């Protein structure tokens, strides 16, 4: 295994473009090292991107949007005094991944590029409308988070391409987001179901909404029908039931060691309601 620690994304991209065999980028390493140690994936080329300037930065831009470096860790996101005020759902979703120790290393970008449908931060990012900047041999492009995963362990990134920044939109007024997942223990598990909700209110009425589901299909889903079920409502019981029904209907899960089809389908609806209530309360400025 060759190990490189380039000083720029252009250099990293060139290394990857010219490499043969399996290439992996190393940010927090919490997936790459597990796969390496268990002989699942032994990269021929490992490109550590943490020596690139600015990769740990968390920056609020003039328009209120956020740019996160690709090696900013979950712990750094949680400790940031303002990011969590704007996007509590995104920060909490990231914070749910693994232990305190894992938080010291794990990154949004790594969680996304691992391509797991159960990745906790991804539904939250999808709901929040997060995009990523992708640097490749032909320059940079911007992609929506929901367009990155293409299947379990697979991404839309081409050879030589890597994510170079995470862009979170401006929170704006009267908005709130939330993420909940179901795990059998209280910590340390992979999500059996995950739900991200981001919405905006006009008075008591929901005027914008994005609802995403994790661990219930080969990729994280952005579910239009869930959004439709609550837009124009005050999130009353009828709207919540419609949301739950839409969430369950969108599921296309598998039976595996972590949960059954029936369980995931049912709990997706339950969690969709619970998550939407938190996002709604946050949009109203209530503590939740």
């Amino acid at each position: 295994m060759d190990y490189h620690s380039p000083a720029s994304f252009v250099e990293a991209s060139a290394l990857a473009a010219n490499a043969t065999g399996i290439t992996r980028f190393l940010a927090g390493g919490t997936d790459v090292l597990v796969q390496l140690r268990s002989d699942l994936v032994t990269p021929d080329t490992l490109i550590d991107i943490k020596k690139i300037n600015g990769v740990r930065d968390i920056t609020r831009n003039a328009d209120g949007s956020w740019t996160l470096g690709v090696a900013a860790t979950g712990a750094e996101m949680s400790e940031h005094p303002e990011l969590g005020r704007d996007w509590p759902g995104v920060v909490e979703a990231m914070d749910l991944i693994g232990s305190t120790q894992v938080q010291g290393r794990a990154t949004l970008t790594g969680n996304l590029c691992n391509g797991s449908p159960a990745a906790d931060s991804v539904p939250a990012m999808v709901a929040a409308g997060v995009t990523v900047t992708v640097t490749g041999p032909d320059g940079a492009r911007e992609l929506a988070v929901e367009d990155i995963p293409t299947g379990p362990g697979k991404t839309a990134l081409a050879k030589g391409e890597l994510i170079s920044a995470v862009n979170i939109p401006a929170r704006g007024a009267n908005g709130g987001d939330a993420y909940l997942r179901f795990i059998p223990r209280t910590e340390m598990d992979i999500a059996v179901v995950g739900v991200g909700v981001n919405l905006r209110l006009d008075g008591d009425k929901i005027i914008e909404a994005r609802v995403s589901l994790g661990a219930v299909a080969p990729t994280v889903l952005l579910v239009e029908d869930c959004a439709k079920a609550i837009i124009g409502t005050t999130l009353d019981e009828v709207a919540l039931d419609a949301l739950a029904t839409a969430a369950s209907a969108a599921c296309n899960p598998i039976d595996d060691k972590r949960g059954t089809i029936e369980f995931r389908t049912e709990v997706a609806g339950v969690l969709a309601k619970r998550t939407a209530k938190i996002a709604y309360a946050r949009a109203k400025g209530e503590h939740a």
Partner: protein
Amino acid sequence: MSKFHVSTQVNGDAVEFLCDPRETLLDCLRDKLNLTGTKEGCGTGDCGACSVTVEGRLVCSCLMLGVEAEGKQIETVEGIADGDMLHPLQKKFIEYAALQCGVCTPGILVAAKSLLEKNPNPTEEETRYWLAGNLCRCTGYDKIIRAVMDTAAELREAS
């Protein structure tokens, strides 16, 4: 396959080692620096027995490569005591019988020390969640949590 030369600081001491890029920081601490206090329980970041701090940040040394330690400050269980003066957490763990087999103890001490440095007054729930990545199979965590909480109280009184 060529090896990498790594210069780093462990518990305040400047150290150097040669490592294969596939070797983890844990492998390097144990097999190259003879610091066997840091344990491998799983190798997948799920048990916390290999907990160390890197630049003051709590991490699993099994989830970090040895080459990534270049130029970093690393603290392990061997660095918790100040010479022959045990850290208050170490004393409390003995006093509270907060260890049985003791194999998870180094990781838990490193993690608990990191907690108390960030949060001198943790609730029981905060303590339990902070330590959720440190598996203990012997104690049921009861005496461990009590030892950490009481150390925190004692440190607060002392300061």
